[in-house]
């Protein structure tokens, strides 16, 4: 196992990785930008090293800065967390070239699964149902229009690189397509440095269900059940839960087993997540794979008792999976609430500032993953995630009640958060019935949700 790991990330995931290191007896070195000098992971680290200015391009996105930091602090591995360089095959390769272990899939694996469209074909060829889409990347507008006609509107324009909703648009007519495609190209270009786009059949009222897998260097793979991430705003997940209310036990097991079989056959390695859209009739369509630890991994941890970050590190260190599929049992129900510094009453405008008060909820079945502390100044330069409140209970109804109580105990003052939208969700009929679809929050609008909660 590693002796010393450089944590090449920030915020709650840097803290999460640091906590995993503590339980594994690994020293944790936190690389931080000038804007994160006071962050909790920096203060808790065995060592912290400033790698650059606030601008992520010169710090968290700078391979030389990160690797140089790992070298001079005597680390033997680098954990990229999520986002930033976590799925960058070039970074993974340079890390390896400096005799450091990249905690994630190898560069070859990342390269193989880099293109979403290519991955769809690959896993489709290994038996995963995929969503009808364009024949390869869109060469030009004419090609786009032809393909959209063939697939049938509405269609979703998606960038080949990146994620998180950037460069993504749903269009219902050729006219909308023509205008949207330009915006998507420029968004994708600026966000990922790659403006190649493809089309996908748009499924109205779909659910987002993803399967968590873990595969070791020896090609042995297991799944750890699925997560339902249908509660989204503009393709951004804000609440995740497991098991999914969308599928029955048999369908869930079948989906998870097919998913792990396919990625093992396709040569995937390390932890990963296969995302599926599930249509009204419960048919799953594979859409993409995430080759990293995910924000919502605690849902799986509460259901299985498995430390996903520790598991990821063991796999990266070349250890065989310490678990077989039969060791994995999913107990009860878990819900994760993403606590973001954004204002639901003002179109989720992101916020920053000093946390003047912070009080975390506690008690049975309540877990808080947050880098906040009272007096901490949230910098304006990065994403708006302040932390994750995750609750577990034997059943979904109890988990919802526990989530309500925990959200009432949680205090975050000094900046506006989306806590109210979560309370509103827990009072929303569609959510309570387990009928949320990825478009519902955008269609109904946050205002309606908040109003509903006020009445409740």
């Amino acid at each position, binding site marked *: 196992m590693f002796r010393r790991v450089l944590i090449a990330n920030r915020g709650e995931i840097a803290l999460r990785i640091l906590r995993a290191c503590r339980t594994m007896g690994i020293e944790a070195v936190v690389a931080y930008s*000038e804007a994160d*000098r006071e962050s909790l992971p920096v203060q808790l680290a065995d060592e*912290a090293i400033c790698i650059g200015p606030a601008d992520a391009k010169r710090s968290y996105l700078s391979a030389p800065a990160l690797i*140089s930091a790992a070298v001079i602090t*005597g680390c033997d591995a680098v954990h990229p967390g999520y986002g930033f360089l976590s799925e960058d095959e070039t970074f993974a390769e340079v890390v390896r070239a400096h005799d450091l272990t990249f905690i994630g899939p190898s560069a070859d694996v990342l390269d193989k699964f880099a293109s979403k469209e290519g991955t769809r074909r690959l896993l489709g060829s290994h038996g995963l149902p995929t969503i009808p889409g364009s024949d390869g990347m869109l060469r030009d507008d004419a090609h786009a229009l032809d393909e959209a006609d063939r697939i049938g509107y509405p269609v979703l324009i998606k960038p080949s690189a990146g994620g998180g909703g950037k460069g993504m648009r749903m269009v219902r007519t050729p006219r909308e397509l023509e205008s949207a495609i330009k915006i998507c190209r420029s968004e994708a270009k600026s966000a990922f440095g790659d403006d190649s786009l493809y089309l996908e059949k748009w499924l109205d009222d779909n659910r987002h269900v993803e399967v968590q897998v873990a595969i070791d260097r020896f090609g042995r793979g297991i799944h750890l059940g699925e997560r339902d991430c249908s509660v989204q705003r503009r393709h951004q997940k804000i609440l995740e839960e497991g098991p999914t209310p969308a599928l029955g036990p048999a369908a869930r097991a079948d989906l998870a087993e097919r998913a792990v079989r396919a990625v093992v056959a396709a040569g995937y390695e390390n932890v990963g997540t296969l995302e599926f859209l599930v249509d009204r009739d419960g048919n799953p369509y594979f859409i993409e794979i995430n080759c990293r630890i995910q924000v919502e991994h605690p849902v799986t941890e509460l259901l299985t008792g498995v430390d996903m970050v520790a598991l990821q590190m063991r796999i990266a260190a070349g250890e065989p999976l310490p678990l077989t599929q039969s060791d994995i049992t999913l107990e009860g129900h878990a819900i994760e609430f993403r606590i973001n510094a954004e204002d639901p009453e003002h179109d989720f405008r992101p916020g920053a500032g000093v946390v003047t008060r912070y009080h975390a909820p506690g008690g049975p079945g309540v877990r808080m993953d947050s880098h906040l502390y009272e007096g901490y100044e949230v910098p304006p330069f990065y994403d708006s995630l302040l932390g994750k409140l995750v609750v577990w209970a034997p059943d979904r109804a109890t988990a919802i009640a526990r989530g309500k109580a925990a959200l009432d105990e949680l205090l975050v003052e*000094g900046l506006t958060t989306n806590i109210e939208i979560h309370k509103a969700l827990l009072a929303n009929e569609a959510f309570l019935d387990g009928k949320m679809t990825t478009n519902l929050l955008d269609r109904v609008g946050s205002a309606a949700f908040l109003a509903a909660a006020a009445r409740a």
Partner: protein
Amino acid sequence: MPDGPSKSRDRDRDADLAAIDALIDRLVPALTAKLGASHLGELEVREGDWKIRLRRPATAGSWNGEARRATDRAGRSAAGASGSPAHDPHRVATPASSNGATPGGGHAGHTSGTAGRPSHEHETRRVATSPAVGVFRPNARATVGTRVREGDALGHIDVLGVREDVLAPADGLVGELLTDAGNAVEYGQELLVIAVAAPAGAA
């Protein structure tokens, strides 16, 4: 940088802050003098609608919930001076040995009170800092007494074999080196002092 209750109120806040700054400035030195001696961590006084809390800044060392800001960088330079990138749990928080010598750092050898302002801001000395994470390689100019002009390269940081020049921040004479040649340094770490003729002012 004072707390802000919410983005949307920044303007009122700044206005009010400016207004009370005068009052505070009158009060704080007296309080500091009075309490700097005592070994209290925190005091609070209430009146009517308001609560006033005075908190001593973080003791250097492990996590205690306090912002550290400037002490952190200072700590890094002290650590850099120790020469080895080997593990040192307190490395980040070690107060700089040179700290006492840096004005503006405030009382009891703490500098966190200056809330992120680089400590050389008010000085007649300027400090060349590291442009990158890597190994410090000073050149011939980086010797005490050498007269340099702003922008002169005083050496470079070796970043995985790539050179990043260390530049003189002002015209002046090279003073003490704050870390030795060949040491591992972090971004922004203070490397060497330039003594300047006229005060640079707290611009």
